[in-house]
């Protein structure tokens, strides 16, 4: 109903200082003599995260929420799950024709369709996952104001559900590579940790934006534009080698740079650029931390303002 204001959090702090036993100011659950888990409900601080134990208790809900996202996405569509293929393939064709053929953008000696598809695969996953997570809390506001469960599950399930589309478009990648006579290298296995890093990046950004979106719907309007700019700041349609050497470090601060370079190297059996990947992974960890922090800060007031 109302926003939490600075004054209110100050009042909370002082209320807490007065409250006896306020040192345990966390909503925590612990076994208690009475048998059931003990829950303490009191004014919260932003630093108190949803406990892992609680997330674990709700793991079945995460499964069903993710499954709902997936099953609802293509309900009442003619082409159904084919859309998960059409989106990346059509984008790849457009980029190949206009950028690869007409603009002659270099592609490090890889056939341009394979090159750009290898960039699109993680990029589209990232962008879809972020877009869905950002809208997820607002879309579920009704549920959030009627029942408690760890709110983190909502953007988390959005991020996970986008993985299904990713998996489907991955099959197309393998077909495309074989078509161009490129046999996936053994280093393709590196994709597994890379997918995980991509998902964590999407989760970090998605969580932060979903929380921000609860208060400022501007996020909804800014997001498509942000994603477009971000894509062109990422080596999706052009190779990193096009970027001047001295700017590479700055460029690597965009976590998608290291990730996409990593995808290309892993799939094609080229040496990984550990430096860039290291920078990107560090940035992902920072993003994730910031995302969780801003999410938890907003969590306590969701029900009052959505």
């Amino acid at each position, binding site marked *: 109903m*109302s926003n939490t204001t600075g004054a209110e959090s100050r009042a909370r702090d002082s209320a807490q200082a007065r409250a006896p036993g306020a040192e345990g100011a966390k909503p925590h659950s612990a076994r208690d003599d*009475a048998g*059931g*888990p003990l829950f*303490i*409900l009191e004014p919260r601080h932003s630093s108190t995260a949803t406990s892992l134990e609680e997330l674990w208790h709700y793991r*079945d809900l995460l499964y069903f929420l993710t499954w*709902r996202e997936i099953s609802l996405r293509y309900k009442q569509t003619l082409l159904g799950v084919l859309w998960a293929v059409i989106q990346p393939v059509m984008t790849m064709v457009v980029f190949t024709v206009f950028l690869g053929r007409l603009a002659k953008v270099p592609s490090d000696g890889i056939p341009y369709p394979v090159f750009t598809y290898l960039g699109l695969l993680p990029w589209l996953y990232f962008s879809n996952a972020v877009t869905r997570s950002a809208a997820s809390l607002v879309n579920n506001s009704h*549920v959030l104001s009627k029942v408690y469960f760890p709110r983190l599950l909502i953007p988390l399930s959005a991020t996970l559900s986008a993985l299904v589309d990713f998996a489907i478009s991955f099959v197309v990648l393998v077909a495309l590579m074989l078509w161009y006579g490129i046999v996936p290298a053994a280093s393709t296995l590196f994709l597994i940790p890379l997918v995980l890093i991509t998902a964590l990046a999407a989760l970090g950004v998605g969580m932060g934006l979903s929380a921000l979106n609860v208060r400022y719907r501007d996020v909804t309007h800014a997001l498509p534009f942000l994603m477009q700019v971000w894509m062109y700041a990422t080596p999706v349609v052009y190779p990193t080698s096009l970027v001047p050497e001295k700017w590479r470090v700055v460029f690597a601060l965009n976590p998608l740079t290291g990730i996409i370079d990593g995808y290309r190297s892993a799939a094609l059996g080229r040496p990984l650029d550990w430096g860039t990947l290291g920078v990107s992974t560090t940035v992902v960890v920072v993003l994730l931390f910031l995302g969780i922090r801003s999410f938890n800060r907003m969590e*306590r007031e969701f029900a009052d303002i959505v």
Partner: protein
Amino acid sequence: MTLPIISARGVGKRYNLGRLQKRNTSFRESIVEAIRTPFRRGGTTGTAGEEFWALRNIDFDVQPGDVLGVIGRNGAGKSTLLKVLSRITDPTEGRIEMRGRAASLLEVGTGFHPELTGRENIYLNGTILGMRKREIDRKFDEIVAFAEVERFIDTPVKRYSSGMYVRLAFGVAAHLDPEILIVDEVLAVGDAEFQRKCLNKMSDVAQGGRTVLFVSHNMAAVRSICSKALMLSRGQVAGIGEVDPIVNMYLQAGGSSAAAQLSFPLRGDHRPQFTALGMSTPTIEYGESIDLDVEIQSEIASTVAIELEIHDERGTPIAYMATAPIDKTLITLAAGTPRRVRLRCGPLPLATGRYDVYFWLIRPWAEDYHIPAEALSFEVIHSDPGESGFDFRQSYGRGATTFPLHVADA
């Protein structure tokens, strides 16, 4: 002595009304505000008077196995208390300890999606309410049978009738098995038969030793289900304890939306009007009468009649009375002098439950002088028409009154 399963100390919840109106704050607005008032943190407009404490200084304990009825007028803080206890929103101050997992039913069918089938919604809704998948697997057949939707279990719920939808939703809820169950007036849905089924299910849950918090306006339901009652008034605990005294306190304080006393300032438009309405008692039993005290005043001498309407808990008019034309009694008023009359209404063959009495001041066949929007309310606390041990309740959904029935050979 056992530890209380719920223990609340000094709980308060504040809403900021000023911000309430500006809930669609955009990013730009808050930047503008931050620039205008740069020394306030976060663009706060924390002016006094904009704050509203929906709850303040709430202290209470609930023992394991208690079925606590939470009652109070609209706006007394019942919903806020439920939201805080359900962890939907945090208290602004104070502390609550809960020794057990709580499931809350603030509505039925939270998270139901119209495109998903009955089966899919059972799992989704069940896990949202805190159940584990294994638990739902085990109770699945029971839920489907309870909801009577066996044939449609794989049909999207958007094709369900509203009755089926509600039954399915309540079916899931009714099979929750938490240590603490928090229930808002979900019983106010569905047809009469289903309501009865829900009440029975609630009683079962209560008798199973579970701790239940039940918020309701339905005093008959509170009386029949609850072992303790808590009355809230203006965000504070007005009373907690045995059900009967607390319910009586609530009824004497004027029930949910209507009052035991009403008074009206003079309108100054020369037409006759009510100045005060009251009743002799807030509670009666089946077949008793109730006395209504009416004060009328008019600035010019006139002749009036009073009409009454009795509404049941659902707001359905169930009876009509009139001093005229039905009873052929006109009331004459002298100019400028208030006149008090007592209307004996009854005997009233009514079912257990709450009733509202609406007053009309009229000139028969001619003009409506005064129709207050508020009603007086009273409660029938015991109804056993045939003295057979049968408890006749409004909440059964089979009507609010009964008439003699004579059997003779024909």
